[in-house]
């Protein structure tokens, strides 16, 4: 990793989910691809948040832009991608059931109470087809992996972060 560039706003790309719960792990799979295939500048951190929940809290400190990738229950067809930003995220988590709603919802709520909320926050979500135990994605979600990665890269582009292939 390059040396941290203090002049750049710090970015955290956070994939959340459980790899042994089928589509629940999709966020982690996306960040694994980023980690494997791209060179990351010092001010951009890519993290496999797994099912850590509140344990991620210290990693939010000092983060100005947060990009979360997660399976989200939207009621749409499996594989449907959604993008939410800012206040839409906690509101959506309040009313819609995410596979690990408590973890992410509590994380953001506590971050707010402690004053660690990033200035910009985007959630790239995908509707899971199955969150039962299993280590492969359902076809509908698997088919969206490339698209999700593109969404993430384009979101980062919007923040002035242009990732190069490693």
């Amino acid at each position, binding site marked *: 990793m390059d040396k941290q560039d203090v002049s750049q706003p710090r970015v955290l790309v956070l994939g959340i989910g*459980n790899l*042994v*719960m089928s589509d629940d792990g999709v966020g982690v799979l996306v960040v694994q691809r980023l980690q494997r295939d791209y060179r990351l500048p010092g001010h951009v951190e890519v993290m496999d948040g797994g*099912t*850590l929940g*509140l*344990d991620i*809290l*210290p990693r939010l400190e000092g983060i100005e832009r947060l990009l979360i990738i997660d399976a989200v229950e939207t009621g749409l067809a499996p594989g449907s991608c959604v993008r939410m930003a800012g206040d839409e995220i*906690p*509101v959506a988590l*309040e009313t819609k*059931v*995410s*596979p*690990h*709603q*408590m*973890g992410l*919802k*509590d994380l*953001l*709520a*506590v971050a*707010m*109470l*402690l*004053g660690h909320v990033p200035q910009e926050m985007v959630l790239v979500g995908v509707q899971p087809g199955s*969150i*039962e*135990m299993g280590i492969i994605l359902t076809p509908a979600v698997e088919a969206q992996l490339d698209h999700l990665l593109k969404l993430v890269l384009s979101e980062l582009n919007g923040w002035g972060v242009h990732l190069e292939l490693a």
Partner: protein
Amino acid sequence: MAKIVVDPITRIEGHLRIEAEINNGKITDAWSSSTMFRGIEKILQGRDPREAWYWTQRFCGVCTTVHSIASIRAVEDALKLKIPPNAQLIRNIIMGIQNVQDHVIHFYHLHALDWVDVTSALKADPAKTSALAASISEWPKNSTTYFKATQDRLKAFVGSGRLGPFANAYWGHPAYKLPPEANLMATAHYLEALEWQKDVIKVHAILGSKNPHPQTFLVGGMSIPIDPDSQNALNADKLIEIKGLLKKAKNFVENVYIPDLLAVASYYKEWAAIGGGVGNFMCYGEFPDANGKLWFPQGIILNKDISRILPVDHRKISEYVDHSWYEYADSKGKGLHPWDGESEAAYTGPKPPYEYLDTDKKYSWVKAPRYEERPMEVGPLARVLVAYVSGHKETKAAVDMVLAKLGVGADALFSTLGRTAARGIDCLLIARQTPKWLDELIANIASGDYRIHGNEKWDPADWPAEAQGYGWHEAPRGSLGHWIKIKDQKILNYQAVVPSTWNASPRDAKGQRGPYEAALVGTPVADQNKPLELLRTIHSFDPCLACAVHVLDVNGNEVVSVKVS
């Protein structure tokens, strides 16, 4: 009579269901059930005993060290291995800070909301809160400005309509008794404790290379190299960093947790007569020194008789499945010692969704462990009672201080409040002791002893054809045991009996209640649709069902339902 079901119990780890009968505003009978199955022990069969800890650590994602410690000790016991003093001290520091962090998190983040009404904190006068805080502690953050700022953030948060971690509580319930100022003080410290806990657990990252799930455990010692002058080892810089973190841990416990605990408890003294439970207590003892002498003594107390302590013999432990969803090969009504334990699942409960479990038959995935056929409560209360009665100097001083400040006698310990107070005492004792183990470690390294592993019998060719071992640990929630049988260098059988298996146990062959069930009898419930009091007694045990049943929580979507008939 009304029968209520609380499923799941929130602010615990894992999944617990309680069914309770209520007559005239009091619980008259209760059943504790875990509705998730475990299975890691079966995965271990046929594997290399030296890697068992790596798997058992995954029983849980909360107290992630405890199942490693118990596992490596079981293998060391089986192979008769001795570990060097440095490894022992490092383990003590890892276990110590785990206990301290876990207890603070339990008090503020899992249990306090049973006693502290966050919504009432909005009505508090910050100046009066500051005066209250200053009267019980010299904590530097106790200013009016500080409490005002916390209250403002809380107001903005509640005003947003999102309660986040404060959802699923019974705000405004008549059983909440703290004045608004005490509620604001405790809520401010709830947030402070969140910041504190993430710092102090860095000790695990330093000594264990990562947290959760430290990676430096090893049968025969530890795998972290010691060299004061190397950047790639436990060196002088890292030891000093740990020293600072342990000081921070102790400082918070002494100046925030204990004063808050005493302040909150003083408003709820009637809970010193509620929630007594089975009255039998067990502690395996913990924190061995270089010679194996235990700092916390082991022992058993029966029938609340604090005039004598009985020794613990793990051979007297057996697990029953008469009310648990398992089938033993041939033993109706008989218990099995964990060396011969079996985990064959045999679910006979109703098909979900269901209204009630058939509690006359099998009703839980938790087995019923018994010591000489008696149910045992384990945990901080058991640990503190055994140490107190054994004349453990530091424990005696801390218990007497707490009893004197609350103006109650030792009988008060056998209760919901006693359990919660004992956790604070346990935390205080360990928070004060852990820095001493670090000093010993530093002195030992300074003397030139860098040994971290015994280096004996690592090669399975040096092992006997058959061996069996018992690994014990006093985890935050109490006595944890792992039992291993080794044959031809592979695991033949493996069983874990975890603290919450003891405490959350269902009835046994004789129909004796487990500790949760017994403690709930007599607990008042003012409003059966909002059984806050039931939660107080259950939470006082700090349930952790994730490891009692050994399975991942599939669905973080917790919708609490309280069903009343």
